[in-house]
């Protein structure tokens, strides 16, 4: 316990000495000050003395909460800006630890390699935990004062953002231990982050198009059934081919998504607690026969709207447990490998 506490205090001192920690904190402070300048007055959003009337078109409190807090502040600053700065700042934790002359000092103490590794890993999460905690506390207070909504659910951002950072920090740790280079850790972690982001965006897009093509195929087959023609038969055949291809690629990306950490999906979970149930429920278009407009591989706009509603429904069925659990499992596998390297290596 004494050793763990010493490592924790050491990590805090390390953070204090890093300029990036203070830069990130300063940016967070500036964002909170900017947020404090925005307020809600009746049916209007105010910024300094400016008033933006909503005329009942949208609830200003919801706009403040969802667009400003959820999309801009949490969605952009916390999940991208702060995480990127945290990754840069913490990439050197393990390369510094295992550098010659430093690791000797630690390993020559009565602490097991595994415990040293695990403790150092968790102290690496301190950067984000401290930053997000302070930032969300600021958001909570400002939101309470400015729009009179005291929402403790905002604090859910702390475990979610820390969890999301921990997925990436596991990769950073692995690369850091493997290559002993902070630069390599930053670059390869950024690559993994990019890959995760691409997979999480492309997979629903492929699902959307597969479902849209299914929808279009069903529609064409109905038409062909009512008035059989060579044209409809050919169109149905083309749609089936496209559907098969989209189905194949969707399966591929779904498998990749299942394995990789769900970075974006983890932070998007916050929307479920910040938005109302009504706002999260997908809107299904009217059952009209309007199939005009541009088509995508034969699927009309309406086919895509129906598919989009289905995709949104499917996305909502993905539970926090499955999203975070599978991501943590991936993190664990990466950490086990990094820990094994750390423990087996000669320094």
């Amino acid at each position, binding site marked *: 316990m004494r050793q763990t506490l010493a490592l924790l205090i*050491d990590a805090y*001192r*390390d953070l204090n000495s890093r300029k990036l920690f203070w830069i990130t904190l300063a940016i967070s402070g500036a964002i909170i000050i900017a947020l404090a300048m925005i307020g809600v007055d009746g049916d209007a959003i105010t910024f300094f003395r400016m008033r933006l009337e909503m005329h009942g078109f949208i609830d200003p409190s919801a706009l403040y909460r969802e667009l400003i807090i959820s999309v801009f502040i949490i969605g952009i600053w916390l999940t991208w800006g702060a995480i990127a700065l945290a990754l840069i700042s913490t990439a050197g934790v393990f390369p510094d630890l295992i550098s*010659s*002359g430093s690791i000797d*000092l630690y390993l*020559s103490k009565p*602490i097991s390699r595994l415990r040293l590794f695990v403790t150092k890993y968790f102290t690496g999460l301190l950067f984000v935990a401290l930053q997000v905690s302070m930032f969300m506390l600021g958001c909570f207070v400002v939101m309470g004062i400015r729009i009179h909504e005291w929402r403790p659910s905002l604090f859910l951002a702390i475990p979610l953002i820390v969890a999301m950072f921990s997925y990436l920090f596991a990769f950073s740790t692995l690369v850091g231990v493997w290559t002993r280079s902070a630069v390599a850790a930053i670059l390869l972690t950024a690559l993994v982050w990019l890959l995760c982001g691409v997979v999480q965006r492309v997979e629903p897009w492929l699902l959307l198009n597969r479902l849209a093509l299914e929808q279009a195929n069903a529609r064409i087959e109905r038409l062909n059934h009512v008035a059989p023609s060579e044209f409809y038969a050919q169109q149905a055949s083309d749609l089936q081919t496209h559907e098969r291809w989209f189905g194949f690629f969707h399966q591929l990306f779904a498998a990749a998504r299942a394995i990789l950490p769900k970075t974006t999906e983890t932070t998007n979970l916050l929307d479920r607690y910040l938005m109302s149930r009504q706002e999260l429920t997908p809107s299904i278009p009217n059952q009209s026969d309007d199939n005009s407009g541009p088509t995508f591989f034969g699927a009309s706009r309406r086919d895509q709207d129906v598919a989009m509603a289905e995709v949104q429904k499917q996305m909502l069925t993905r539970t926090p447990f499955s999203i975070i659990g599978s991501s943590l499992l991936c993190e664990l596998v990466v950490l086990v490998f990094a820990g094994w390297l750390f423990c087996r290596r000669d320094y």
Partner: protein
Amino acid sequence: MADNSWAIDLRNVAKIYGRRVHALQGISMQVRRGEVFGLLGPNGAGKSTLVKIMMTVVRPTHAEGQVLGQRVGHKPTLARIGYLPENHRFPRYLTGRQTLEFFAAMTKVDRATARKRAAELLETVRMQEWANQKIAMYSKGMLQRIGLAQAMVNDPDLILLDEPTDGVDPVGRREIMEVLHSLRQRGKTVFINSHALSELETICDRVAILVKGQVARQGTIADLTFARLRFEIEVEASSHEDINRLLKLFPANWQESQMVIPTAPHLPPKAVSFWRGQLPDGTRVELRGAALHLGGLEAARAQPALDRIRAAGFVVRRLQQVRPTLEELFMEAITDPTTGQLATPGAAGGPTRKAVAL
């Protein structure tokens, strides 16, 4: 049953890196409790690897024996050992005092004791004025002082120091030596790995010389040097002709060898010829320049040689009994007796198989 008189009792310690580089080849070494032990050897001989194995930084390929009565690699025992690694790197964001308190905590020293010891040790290594400055501001000598204090912060029974005086000015070196003397007086066992042979000579009870992962010599300095006591007769002989006359004067099986000796820092070493042989009565003889060395302890053995030299018309400049220095022992240990060449740096089996430019 473990012999409690040994602080370190290593047997057959081997380390092979990547199946090819034999850093240690079956080292056996004993260090008594309460003694100061010096480990010498050229670069790459395996000194640091051996220390790192004892400190669990490097995993041995094979190791038997004990450190402080426990098997090599026993983690809890490390709480009773202090270690100063070579080229250590302390966290630059900590002050000297914080560094000592942090590493005290890592060795499970309670907070109050750690604070007390840190204050005492800062005074011992004369760093109290810099105690609250960041490590980043320290000079190399200051870092060594803090490193030494760090190695003592858990009041260890055994202290392993890897190049403790590296980068320290002469005053600092003397102070470090005083600290080591006081440790010995307090009954601590000190294991020093160093290139500063003259310093080791003044403080070590026993030494071991490691060459290419093997123990070439081991024992007390007195024992090692006593076996190599010799008489040195220096005559006035400057020309090749004089040297040849001297060689003919003694019916030994002379063999010419070359020895590479260091000159000055940053200058390449130079090769010096010398002759070595054995007289019919078994006395070892060596002719280096104008100095004839006769092995043996009794002065009587030197008399016939002296008579012969004078009878041949040579002027004797000096006659003295010489006890070899640790440096000479070291040079002898790392010199190939057949070729007279110094051992190349690096471990056996490593890339140093190629010729190494000295």
